[in-house]
């Protein structure tokens, strides 16, 4: 079953023509592996993000916010699940293999989940800055994604991420209208999260980026990053906060903000599992996976 292409050239012509690849098509191995790795990293990131969110359920101030954090935690873990299903169907690794690789530190997840959320302010900054950056990246993939199953599942994920981003901005608004202590805590969080959020987009795309050529990504990293800067720098200012970029400059001619040179070393460290909080994050995810093994055993026992 499924379609076959004579060679890579024919396959790429199909993609350039707006063709959508389905799971049972005989796609080139290179494409299959590149798309799989991309989806696996997305799935891992949703999962690790869900665990971060879960850490804050007991500590979230106020019942209404606590309920939102519960909903968001379920969203993130759910997104992980949806994406693992799509990735597993590509026939490279099973869902369990992907989770075990994640727990063993053998596969990657996004840089932002290698840092520690110190205060409630950090959680708000993450929801505001990081969720927005993740959403922008996902929208750019959804726009033109050539792998059908991923594109369809992204539609649902994006609509839920929109809820998270609105939640984040609303929490920031409350803090901006709050006491000086609240504002100081949040400024500290912005200082910690601005750069990791910006680095989430990655360094400038290489000219031969396969994900661009194969219509997985629809936009270059630097373009998405710049759009985020143009949107979030003025927004942080409008709420009365300082953008933690010492070289921040506004160009009157282009009407654009420039954050100055970007240090990519921290991103590289997180990709090698060497971020400030990588070891604890992976360890706790593994402890949690092992501590819930009984539940999976019960479910297996219920199988008919």
């Amino acid at each position: 079953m499924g379609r076959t292409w004579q060679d890579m050239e024919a396959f790429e012509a199909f993609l350039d023509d707006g063709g959508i690849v389905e799971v049972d098509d005989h796609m080139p191995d290179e494409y299959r592996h590149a798309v799989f790795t991309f989806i696996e990293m997305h799935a891992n990131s949703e999962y690790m993000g869900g665990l971060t969110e879960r850490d804050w359920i007991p500590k979230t101030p106020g019942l209404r916010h606590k309920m939102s954090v519960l909903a968001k935690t379920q969203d993130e873990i759910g997104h992980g699940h949806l994406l693992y299903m799509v990735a597993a169907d590509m026939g490279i690794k099973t869902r369990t293999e992907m989770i075990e690789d994640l727990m063993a530190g053998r596969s990657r997840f996004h840089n932002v989940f290698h840092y520690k959320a110190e205060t409630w302010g950090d959680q708000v900054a993450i929801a505001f800055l990081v969720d927005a950056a993740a959403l922008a990246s996902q929208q750019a993939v959804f726009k033109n994604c050539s792998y059908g199953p991923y594109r369809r599942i992204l539609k649902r994920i994006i609509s839920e991420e929109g809820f998270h981003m609105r939640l984040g901005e609303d929490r920031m608004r409350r803090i901006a209208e709050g006491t000086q202590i609240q504002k100081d805590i949040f400024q500290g969080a912005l200082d910690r999260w601005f750069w990791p959020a910006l680095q989430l987009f990655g360094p400038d795309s290489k000219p031969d980026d396969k994900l661009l050529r194969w219509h997985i990504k629809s936009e270059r990293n630097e373009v998405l990053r710049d759009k985020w800067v143009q949107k979030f720098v003025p927004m942080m200012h409008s709420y009365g906060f300082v953008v933690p970029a010492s070289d921040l400059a506004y160009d009157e001619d282009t009407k654009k903000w420039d954050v100055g040179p970007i240090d990519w070393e921290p991103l590289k460290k997180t990709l090698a599992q060497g971020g400030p909080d990588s070891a604890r994050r992976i360890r706790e995810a593994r402890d949690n996976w092992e501590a819930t093994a009984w539940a999976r055993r019960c479910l297996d026992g219920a199988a008919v």
Partner: protein
Amino acid sequence: MATYEVFLKKDGKDEYRHAGALDAANDELALVMARETYIRRAEGNRVWVVNREHLLMAGDDFISPNADKPHRHHDGAAVAARRKAAREADSSEAGNDE
């Protein structure tokens, strides 16, 4: 564990649409998983959950013999051309009256 496919439908004109897949230990848990994973924000009023093993699937090879059946279509081109010619004849007669 078995893999299930989830289809959702909103009340109204829309048809059932494929939403995605899930892994579950049995049928009852598959329904619970479908609700908690795919129907958390009014994405549908009805759901079908199907064990993937029970789906009958066919691809191009099976369907393609059906694609080459011109006698199942009619483009109506000859009739349309006749009507067009009649309209044009009418309007040129109307033009002669002026």
